[in-house]
């Protein structure tokens, strides 16, 4: 594995702290240590690029320059929004002549463009691999029906060769299968949950989330697996209300992929912070 720095991002320190905790537990169970990038700053999330493209590029360049200076070849961003901002800024630097030089001079930076950005799914599926993951399984999730929800930002970076299929990705499905669970086929793998419209245009996002939950329910999913703090927040926090409003028969627990790995690795539920969710995830496990 190349020398990699963890870029946790603001959400993993806050609303998605369970993602960070379970990521660290799952990684150390496999004997993998990833140091945190020192002095990282916010990537700007959905807001910076939405109103100020140059600002988002500078924020990304500052983080990537830090990684370069600190001697890392890769940055791992478990948050899909952080991943998208860092990776798409990198892609723009490659595509557009002189852009990096311009951003560097305007931002008083000296990023050389050498750092590769990965997300957790890419790391798990393509670097660590299903074999190494399945070797760690002590408590196979036999009979557990899971749908993998990739959301938007893990695979959709314009003008960039994605680590997985853009429209119908399979990396998370393969990881879930290597834990012994059934990764179900479904129609909403990469449909949008509404992102920050969840705060600003509630009824729109409720509609988007309802479609996702409705299909997961119809396929008989016991849980929805995610790799994005925003997706998790939007699918989990108000799900009970959304199910009531859209007459969906039952709520479905939403887990981070690293939490599901932790369960299969035999890590204690409290360490994986399953109780942080609003939709009760306590019963997620192998079928009785």
């Amino acid at each position, binding site marked *: 594995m190349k020398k990699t720095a963890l870029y946790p991002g*603001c*959400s993993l*320190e*806050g*609303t*998605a*702290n*369970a993602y960070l905790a379970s990521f660290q537990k799952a990684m150390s169970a496999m004997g993998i240590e990833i140091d945190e990038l020192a*002095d*990282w*700053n*916010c990537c*700007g*999330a*959905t*807001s*910076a*690029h*939405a*109103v*100020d*493209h*140059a*600002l988002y*590029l*500078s924020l990304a360049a*500052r983080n990537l320059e830090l990684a370069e200076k600190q001697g890392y070849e890769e940055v791992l961003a478990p948050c899909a929004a952080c991943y*998208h901002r860092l990776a798409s800024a990198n892609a723009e630097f490659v595509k557009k002549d002189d852009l990096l030089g*311009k951003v560097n001079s*305007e*931002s*008083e930076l000296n990023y050389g463009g050498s750092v590769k950005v990965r997300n957790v799914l890419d790391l798990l599926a393509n670097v660590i691999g299903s074999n190494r993951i399945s070797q760690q399984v002590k408590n196979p999730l036999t009979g557990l029906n899971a749908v993998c929800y990739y959301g*938007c*930002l893990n695979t*959709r*970076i*314009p*003008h960039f060769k994605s680590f997985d299929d*853009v*429209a119908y990705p399979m990396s998370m499905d393969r990881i879930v299968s290597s834990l012994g669970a059934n990764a179900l086929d479904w129609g909403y793998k*990469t*449909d*949008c949950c*509404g*992102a*920050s*419209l969840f*705060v*600003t*245009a509630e009824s*729109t996002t409720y509609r*988007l989330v309802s479609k996702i939950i409705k299909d997961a329910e119809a396929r008989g999913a016991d849980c929805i697996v995610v790799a994005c703090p925003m997706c998790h927040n939007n699918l989990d*926090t108000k799900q009970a209300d959304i199910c009531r409003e859209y007459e969906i028969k039952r709520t479905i627990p939403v887990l981070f992929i690293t939490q599901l790995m932790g369960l299969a690795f035999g890590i204690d539920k409290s360490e994986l*912070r399953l*109780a*942080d*969710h*609003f939709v009760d995830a306590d019963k997620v496990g192998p079928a009785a």
Partner: protein
Amino acid sequence: MSQTSEIRENACLCYQCGKCSAGCPVAEDMEVLPHRVMHYVGMGMDEKVLDKNTIWMCAGCFTCAVRCPNDIDITSIMDDLRRKALNKGSKCAVPSVKTFHETFINDFCRRGRVHELRMMGEYNMKSGHPLHNASLAPKMLLRHRLHVLPPRTVKGFKKWIRRLLKRS
């Protein structure tokens, strides 16, 4: 750093297939559909859309950008149009979205990282709904998903970002 000319050139490639509008998850809430926006931008008639809700309702999901047969990065054109609307002082059709982005940016500019609890509180005050989702906060705090204390301050960030924002 204005991208406008480059973006206009790009939008000229649009042949109105409508794939962007067909796949857009929020199209039904938009006053002007994305393919129409591309038409206006390609024709140099950006003004037609700056005061419409489309640019603010766009969720930034990049579905249109990766599906466009002419590789037009429609999502980033929406970013550019928002910037333009703000610079021109156009009427904002969805003020809550604008307030949210401004509040979010202000928040991370303070320390380099977002303090979600503070940011949401400020957003509620500024958007005129101080108690919006207020019942959620204690539940989030109990679940360790919000923190009363702010995140660690990133060394030198505040000065860096101030200089940067002053230049642009």
